[in-house]
């Protein structure tokens, strides 16, 4: 094995062999699941734990109270409208055994207003429940009152959900259906992955550089190999650690997805047959069109470009972190150098968010061409389709800059790793680059 290979292997093993890596790799998805599951679980417990609410319904029209059906959460008790003169008195007389009183006024057909009274909290769930039930019932009653036969069916037939499909014309003249929402979601996901990866592993490289410098092993190592080999070995080694971590997460996701899919009775959506089957099984056509849209995106160029930008962006930022890390003696001194880098990353991230609404606007185009922001911003634009010349220009600039930065970082690194004592300033770094 050559020296670069040895350095990569050591760097890789030194991180992957750590307990913290294993904990972190398995812990992150768990944490994610917890973050999503805890609110749902708590809400469920909240509903389950509360007693059934006693709700009196005073229906002055005498026609609609029956529509409100009692269930575990609400027990609706219809009260004849004329027996009650004052809702407040009635509530007080009940001595706390009532949670709320719903009054359906006589003129509800014309005003469409229903009141709920209570001394306690009226939950949004109750309000929306009552609203939807009464709206449907009153609407049906109105239709029936018109005295036209089969009116209900006619209305149902006339009811239309407008589905706006975006169809993209390719230059070759073909048509392709695309979904804005899905493109947006995909772009957001890719840019967040790039952003997180670069920041997380950039910091890891920096720590590794500082550690070698602090425990003084670095001078022994660079007496056996060129400093550039050591730096490159670190960058590649840590990059491989990141890829390993991602691969583990993807496998975990696939396992969890399969298990969840089979328990929910939905087949894993791996083949078009399965999708079609799922589409008919799940009664609404929404699922079908969703899947059609998901499938409609041409993934090959997106994946290819994602990989290219990912490598370019990682190389750019990780060598920056390695160069800067070499200039400090201990991790606590590193913030003066990392702050500007993190700031640039943040700007790239916010630029990406801002470009989501209009992925072909001038800000989006420029930010996806400038090398420091392009790895994140271009991810947002990719699913919407990007003109070839912009992609080409952006990639050439990204890789050109990444190589230039790696070269400069190597020059800083070469001097920095042997620099102890006095804290280096940005001025020193520029001197070292020469």
């Amino acid at each position, binding site marked *: 094995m050559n020296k670069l290979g040895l350095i990569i292997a050591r760097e890789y093993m030194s991180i992957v062999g750590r307990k913290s890596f294993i904990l972190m790799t398995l812990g992150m998805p768990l944490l994610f699941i917890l973050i999503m599951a805890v609110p749902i679980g708590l809400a469920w417990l909240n509903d389950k734990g509360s007693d059934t609410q006693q709700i009196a319904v005073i229906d002055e029209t005498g026609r609609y109270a029956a529509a409100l059906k009692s269930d575990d959460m609400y027990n609706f008790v219809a009260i004849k409208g004329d027996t009650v003169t004052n809702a407040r008195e009635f509530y007080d007389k009940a001595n706390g055994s009532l949670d709320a009183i719903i009054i359906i006024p006589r003129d509800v057909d014309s005003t469409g207003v229903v009141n709920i009274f209570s001394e306690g909290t009226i939950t949004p769930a109750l309000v929306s429940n009552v609203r939807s039930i009464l709206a449907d019932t009153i609407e049906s009653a109105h239709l029936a009152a018109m005295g036209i036969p089969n009116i209900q069916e006619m209305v149902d037939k006339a009811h239309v959900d407008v589905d706006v499909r975006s169809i993209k014309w390719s230059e070759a003249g073909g048509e392709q259906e695309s979904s804005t929402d899905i493109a947006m979601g995909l772009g957001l996901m890719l840019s967040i992955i790039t952003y997180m990866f670069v920041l997380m592993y950039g910091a890891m490289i920096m720590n590794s550089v500082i550690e070698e410098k602090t425990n003084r092993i670095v*001078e*022994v190592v660079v*007496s*056996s190999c060129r400093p550039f080999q050591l730096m490159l070995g670190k960058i590649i080694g840590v990059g491989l650690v990141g890829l390993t971590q991602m691969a583990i997460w993807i496998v975990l996701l696939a396992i969890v997805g399969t298990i969840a899919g089979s328990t929910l009775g939905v087949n894993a959506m791996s083949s078009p047959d399965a999708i079609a089957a799922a589409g008919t099984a799940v009664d609404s056509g929404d699922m079908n069109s969703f899947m059609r849209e998901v499938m409609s995106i041409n993934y090959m160029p997106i994946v290819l470009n994602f990989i290219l930008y990912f490598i370019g962006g990682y190389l750019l930022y990780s060598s920056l972190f390695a160069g800067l890390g070499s200039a400090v003696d201990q991790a606590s001194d590193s913030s003066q150098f990392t702050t500007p880098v993190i700031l640039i990353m943040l700007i790239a991230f916010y630029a990406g968010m801002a470009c989501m609404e209009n992925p072909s606007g001038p800000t989006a185009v420029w930010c996806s061409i400038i090398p420091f922001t392009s790895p994140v911003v271009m991810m947002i634009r990719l699913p919407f389709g990007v003109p070839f010349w912009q992609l080409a220009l952006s990639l050439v600039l990204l890789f050109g800059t990444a190589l230039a930065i790696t070269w400069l970082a190597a020059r800083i690194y070469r001097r920095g790793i*042997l620099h102890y004592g006095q804290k280096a300033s940005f001025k020193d770094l520029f001197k070292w680059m020469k």
Partner: protein
Amino acid sequence: MAYLDINNVVKRYEEHTALAGVSMQVEQGTIYGLLGPNGAGKSTLIRIINRILAADEGTVTLNGKQMTDNDITHIGYLPEERGLYKKMKVGDHIVYLGRLKGMTKADAVASMHWWLDRFDLKEWENKKVENLSKGMQQKVQFIGTVIHRPPLLIFDEPFSGFDPVNAEQLKVEILALRDQGSTILFSTHNMASVEEVCQQITLLNHAQVVLTGSVDEVKQQHKKNIIAVQTPDSIEPNPALYTLLPPDPTKKHDTYIKLAQGVNVRDAITWLNEHYQLTGFTEVLPSMNEIFIETVKSKNTENNE
């Protein structure tokens, strides 16, 4: 032809010159002392030999050939500031350093076992470096330096951090390596160890060579014509031949005399022997420590004037 030939090496930094034309010849199979106060340029010179830094001018040849990056496999380097990867296992660490120097895995593993055995560290092979005592870590570092049996060894302050017992063991190992044909460049402040192990020395001060030669030669050059005379009598001064020096309270039987200009030892001793009852005499040579301090101080005053 010297094994390691450093010829007029210059290294400049933005603010200062670290080496202003340094030349030095190290013969094969010898231990060569590179001396000098802090900041004299020793570390820079060592880093240039190790090809960690590049010289601005001058040449470094190894075995008659201009050094290239590939030659670093022929060097073992123990820097003054030492360290190891704390989380690595002792055995893996040594093998890693050996393989970085171009050994095959099998060779490195075999050599690692041999050296761990020699230093009684066998049971520590699978322990992490951070669990070792400081002295043991120093030994591991030494093994990492010599594992690939390099023909040229560079030790920067090798004895610092060792207790006397371990320092002695280390000295024995270094002498053994020399006897097996290794050439050793030895950078230190510890003048006692220089006298014990070095054949040749070079003293650097302010980026320049101020003194060079074999230890004996240097001592002869710097002798002050002082003689310790052993006699029960009390010697009177004789300005024509010598002056008396203050006695050394730890050596009651010695009287120290400094010969006058142009007087040789034989004349003085003959005269003394005629007038006093001499039991013996020895010429007092200066210690390397004295020579070091004297040379550095005198150069510094020269520079200040």
